C-alpha cells in the first residue's frame, strides 16, 4: 500500500477495542445496517478533525445507543432515560471548556425526555445534541415513538398509528426552532451517499459551534433501524430516503451561527465565605452555651405545633429545636404545610431527646401547641395521657376536653398585642410552654432566638414575648 495515502480509516477517538463483549471487540453492538454506527462515525470524525478528543464529554442515553461510551475514548457519562440534556447542562456549566455532546434516540428525546430537551434548548445551553430519529423504540423491541409516522404498525399500534388516539408525528426540530435561544438546528438523514455527506457537515458544524462558544446546537438525524422495521439494510436506507423524509423534511431550521455572539462565561459560584452575607445570615454562630452547661435531664419531648399559616407555627418549632441543639440534645424539626403562604393550615413536628431520634414524625405528641380551634380538635385525641396542651383561646371549645392531660388555655395572640405585636403570639406561647415544662434553660433559648430572629427589632420583640409568656404561667394558669 506504499503507493497510497490513507484517506479514511477508523477514527482515532474510538477505543482500540470495545471491551463490552468478550468477543467481537472491534465491532459495535448495533445490528447490521444500523444508523447509530454511521452517526457514531460521523461524530468521531468531527471530534478528530476539531482536535477536541481530550475535552469532549459524551452523554449516552437509554436506548440502543446506551453503550455509546464503550466506543468513544472521551469523557463519558450514561444517564437516565431522557435526562441527557439536563446532565449535559450540568457538565457544561461545571466544565465550560469541555465540549459536551448529548446523544439521544427519539424515544429518549421526544418521549420521556421532552421536558429536558425543550428547556435546555430554551435556555440556549451551549451544548450539542445529536438526535437519532429512527421513528421507533429500538431497544425495547418496537413500540411506537412520538415520531412514528401515521399508519405505521408497531407493537403498541398493531393496527397502525391512529392520530385520534396516538396523535401526530412529533416534529422536534420544528418545535425547537420556534424558540428564541437555539443557534443551530438542522435535520439530516442517512438515506444515501449525498445525505450522509450532508449529515457529516451538520454534525461537524454543530460541534464546531460549541467549540466557538456559541449556544445550543441540535442535529436531528433520520436513521435506519433495519431490525425493528423488519427490512434489509438497503431497504431500510431507502425507506429513510423516500418515506421518512416525506414526514420529516430535511433542511436547516435555525442558523444563527454567523451572528451569534459567544456566550458570556458563566458567573463563578460565590465562595463559601460569602454565603452568610448572601442569605443575610449573621456572621458566625453566637457561641452556643451547650458545652458549658449541657442538658442533664432526661428529655423525650415530642411536640406538635399547629395553627394557620402566618401564625408563626414553623418558627416556634424551629426555636424549640435549635434551643435543643444548644442543650446538646438530639433534635428534629419537620414542617408540614399546604400550598398556601398564608391562612392555610400548617403544623410542624419537633422532637428533642437524649437519644438518637428514629423518626422526625410526631404521631403521639406529649406536647400539643394549638394556635387555633381546628388544630386543637384535630390533634387532641393523639396527645399522650399525661401530656400538655397549650391552646390559644379564652376557653376550651365545646367537646374538646380530656381529663388525662394538662391544659394551658390563654389567648396568646391577644396577649402579644399587649407587648406591641400580635405576630409574637407564637413566642408568648413558647414562653408559657418553656416555663410550664421547665425542660430548657433560658440561655439555650436565647441563643437560638438570636440566630433565628430576622432582625434586631424582631429579636427584641421575641425575647420580650417569651418572657411575657413565662410570666403568664405564674399569673393566671387557668382551668
Amino acid at each position, binding site marked *: 500500500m506504499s503507493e497510497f*495515502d*490513507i484517506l479514511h480509516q477508523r477514527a482515532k477517538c474510538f477505543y482500540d477495542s470495545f471491551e463490552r463483549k468478550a468477543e467481537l471487540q*472491534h465491532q459495535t453492538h448495533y445490528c447490521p445496517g444500523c444508523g447509530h454506527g454511521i452517526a457514531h462515525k460521523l461524530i468521531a470524525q468531527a471530534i478528530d478533525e476539531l482536535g477536541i478528543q481530550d475535552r469532549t464529554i459524551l452523554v449516552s442515553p437509554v436506548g440502543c445507543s446506551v453503550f455509546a461510551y464503550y466506543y468513544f475514548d472521551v469523557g463519558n457519562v450514561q444517564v437516565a432515560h431522557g435526562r441527557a440534556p439536563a446532565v449535559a447542562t450540568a457538565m457544561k456549566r461545571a466544565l465550560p471548556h469541555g465540549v459536551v455532546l448529548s446523544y439521544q434516540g427519539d424515544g429518549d428525546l421526544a418521549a420521556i425526555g421532552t421536558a429536558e430537551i425543550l428547556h435546555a434548548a430554551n435556555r440556549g445551553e451551549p451544548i450539542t445534541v445529536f438526535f437519532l430519529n429512527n421513528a421507533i423504540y429500538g431497544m425495547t423491541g418496537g413500540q411506537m415513538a412520538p415520531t412514528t409516522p401515521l399508519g405505521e404498525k408497531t407493537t403498541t399500534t398493531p393496527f397502525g398509528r391512529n392520530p385520534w388516539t396516538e396523535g401526530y408525528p412529533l416534529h422536534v426540530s420544528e418545535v425547537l426552532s420556534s424558540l428564541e435561544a437555539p443557534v443551530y438546528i438542522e435535520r439530516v438523514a442517512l438515506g444515501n451517499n449525498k445525505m450522509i455527506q450532508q449529515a457529516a457537515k451538520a454534525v461537524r458544524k454543530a460541534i464546531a459551534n460549541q467549540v466557538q462558544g456559541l449556544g445550543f446546537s441540535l442535529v436531528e438525524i433520520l436513521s435506519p433501524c433495519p431490525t425493528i422495521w423488519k427490512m434489509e439494510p438497503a431497504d431500510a436506507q431507502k425507506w429513510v430516503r423516500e418515506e421518512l423524509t416525506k414526514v420529516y423534511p430535511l433542511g436547516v431550521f435555525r442558523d444563527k451561527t454567523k451572528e451569534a455572539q459567544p456566550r458570556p462565561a458563566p458567573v463563578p459560584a460565590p465562595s463559601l465565605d460569602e454565603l452568610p452575607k448572601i442569605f443575610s445570615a449573621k456572621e458566625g454562630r453566637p457561641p452556643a452555651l451547650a458545652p458549658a452547661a449541657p442538658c442533664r435531664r432526661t428529655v423525650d419531648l415530642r411536640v406538635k405545633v399547629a395553627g394557620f399559616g402566618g401564625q408563626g407555627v414553623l418558627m416556634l418549632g424551629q426555636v424549640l429545636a435549635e434551643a435543643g441543639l444548644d442543650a446538646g440534645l438530639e433534635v428534629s424539626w419537620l414542617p408540614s404545610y399546604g400550598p398556601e403562604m398564608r391562612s392555610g393550615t400548617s403544623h410542624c413536628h419537633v422532637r428533642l431527646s437524649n437519644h438518637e431520634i428514629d423518626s422526625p414524625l410526631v404521631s403521639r405528641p406529649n406536647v400539643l401547641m394549638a394556635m387555633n380551634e381546628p388544630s386543637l380538635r384535630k390533634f387532641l385525641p393523639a396527645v399522650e395521657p399525661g401530656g400538655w396542651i397549650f391552646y390559644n383561646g379564652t376557653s376550651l371549645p365545646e367537646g374538646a376536653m380530656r381529663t388525662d392531660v394538662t391544659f394551658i388555655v390563654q389567648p396568646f395572640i391577644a396577649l402579644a398585642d399587649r407587648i406591641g405585636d400580635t405576630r409574637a403570639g407564637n413566642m408568648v406561647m413558647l414562653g408559657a410552654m418553656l416555663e410550664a415544662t421547665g425542660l430548657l434553660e433560658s440561655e439555650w433559648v436565647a441563643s437560638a432566638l438570636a440566630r433565628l430572629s430576622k432582625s434586631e427589632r424582631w429579636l427584641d420583640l421575641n425575647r420580650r414575648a417569651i418572657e411575657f409568656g413565662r410570666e403568664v404561667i405564674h399569673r393566671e394558669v387557668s382551668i
Partner: protein
Amino acid sequence: MSDIARPDKGSVAINADECKGCGLCVISCALGVLRQSDSLNRFGYHPAVYAGHGCNGCGLCFYACPEPGAIAVYKRAAAPRATQPELVAA
C-alpha cells in the same frame, strides 16, 4: 472496470472480521467495485470484498458503513511510483 494499464486513483481495504455484511458499502459504490462474498466470515456474515482494482478513492463506502473499522479508503500518493501496488481483497 478500469484499464489495468492506468493506475487506480484509490484503493479500499475491508477488514472481513469487522464487517457485518449489511451491504451498504456495496450499494454506495458507484463504480461497482465492491460486492458481498459468497462465503461467510467467522461470525456468520457475508463480508464485503473489493474487486481488487477500479476504486477511485471517493470514500463514500467508508461513510456508508456503520462499523468503525471495517473499511479503510486510500488514495494514490501525490507522487506515484511506477509500479502498480499490490491490492488484496479482504
